[in-house]
């Protein structure tokens, strides 16, 4: 995420980086482009949309105050993402274990068999995920939803790359056994 978007080959219309907006404009532009996806990410990290919206709002407020040092939409996007991950971690600390064990919404009954089956599997996966330690959940969501790289996750979460790997492996292994138990062996 540190790399810059490269110029679109051929059209020659990319302009140099350093797009500088005032804080109000930046807020509106970044809100338009990031709000929904950040809420989705936070909702996956927290298991609650309303809590997610609060965390993302706080991230935008922090970004606004910091804008004079960011001055670049791409840097601000990275800053927002890091703030959201941090915010979710603090929110998590203040929440009780019951949240993690809250079952996901029941699968919709209607629909073709295939979809119903997929919803069941999804529900099982989400339930198993929610039972993992918070750190493992966080890393798995960042990796498999946000497609963050090992280095990016290490930066976002503030741990070493080796720890990221360890947590991811443990988390995935625990998921695998949980799903295998559910299916009565192998998935």
């Amino acid at each position, binding site marked *: 995420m540190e790399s810059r978007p490269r110029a679109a080959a051929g059209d020659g219309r*990319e302009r140099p980086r350093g*797009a500088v*907006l005032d*804080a109000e404009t930046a807020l509106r532009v970044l809100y338009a482009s990031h709000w929904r*996806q950040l809420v989705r990410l936070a*909702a996956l990290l927290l298991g609650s949309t309303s809590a997610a919206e609060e965390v993302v709002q706080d991230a935008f407020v922090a970004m606004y105050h910091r804008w004079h040092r960011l001055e670049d939409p*791409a840097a601000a996007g990275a800053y927002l993402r890091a703030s959201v991950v941090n915010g979710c971690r603090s929110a998590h600390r203040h929440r009780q274990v019951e949240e993690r064990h809250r079952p996901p919404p029941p699968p919709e009954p209607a629909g073709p068999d295939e979809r119903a089956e997929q919803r069941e599997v*999804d529900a099982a996966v989400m339930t198993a995920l929610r039972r993992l330690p918070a750190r493992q959940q966080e890393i798995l969501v960042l990796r498999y939803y946000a497609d*963050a790289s090992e280095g990016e996750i290490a930066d976002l979460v503030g741990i070493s790359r080796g720890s990221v790997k360890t947590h991811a492996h443990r988390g995935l292994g625990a998921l*695998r056994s949980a799903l295998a138990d559910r299916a009565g062996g192998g998935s």
Partner: protein
Amino acid sequence: MSPTDSGPFADEPPEHHPTARLLRGALTREADMVRPGDHGLERITEQLHGPAGVPGGEPGPPTPLAGRRGRPGWLPWVAGLAAAAVVGVIAGLAVVTSDDQTVPVAAPTRSEPADPTPSVDPSGPAPSGTSPSDPPPTATEAPVTGSLDQVPVYWVGASRASLWLYREFRTVPDAGGVVASAVRAAMSQSPLDPDYSTPWRQPSRLDVTTEGDAITIDVSADAFASTDVGSDLAATAVQQLVWTATAAAQSPGPVTVLVDGAAYDAWGAVALGEPMTRDGDARAPIWLDTPTEGADLPAGEVTFTGQANVFEGNIVWEVEDAGGALVADGFTTAAMGEFVAYTFAATLPAGRYVVSVHSPDASGGESPEGDRMFEQTRTFSVS
């Protein structure tokens, strides 16, 4: 979502792959079920500047229009490029290097003291987050006395970490001729599309004069009241005026901007006072001209039009309904190297929709901003 088994960790044990794939799919579908509320900006602004309007910052109801707007740059969504037209039909592709096809209602006059009384400018500067309720220019209503239709007004939008100019055709208060009215709108109104913006503040005084092709804009210094305007935004904002004035005048320019009759250093970044022409690179690579934001169209075949100059000329378009479901998509191919008009059509029943157009990323999705380059979205309804 790409069903790639391996994640960023190359040494992932193979036995984890099926679990990783299941997790990836479950997370994606779980995320799709999250419907972020639409009042975040209001509540953020409230947190920053105190309550502005309605007291109480309760989260609004989740709105179903949580479609493609704001697709994340850094999530590698896979554009449905392979799936061509599902319901929609590519109506055709005009190859016209058309520019501003404005219909000036009034010919530019030689001298236009453009300082309308407040009553002539009912929309004024809209508060943040709201759009003035100008009717879409395609509406066939009788023109209101004192306003001009189909006036090209340019705005600033961000894409790919750069700033670009986008155009809207607007019905604007008549400030003494089409050029003055267009320039005044660019400096004092808000864009219909919430993805656009402008750093200009409504000036207390604005005079626009034309002499042959040359246009002179003389404005009061309070138009520059926005703070923290960086050099790129400043340059784009100045070009916003150049493009707006020349489009309205249908002239090549030049445009000279004066502040209280003299040269001026705009936001400490752009020297004003000399004649300027259009910077061709300021124009966004993709414009979506119609429908306009918030337009209400008759049911049946809806035609979408725009102009683009993108790599390999590929434009992917998608129409989503109010529930975020894809109801029509496809792509068009335009010539490269120049801006050409593109058009596509879809047959749509009554409802609210979001149409999006973008250029697929030529780098194969490696860009951190994702593979939906220069995306434009527009919300409209059909009834």
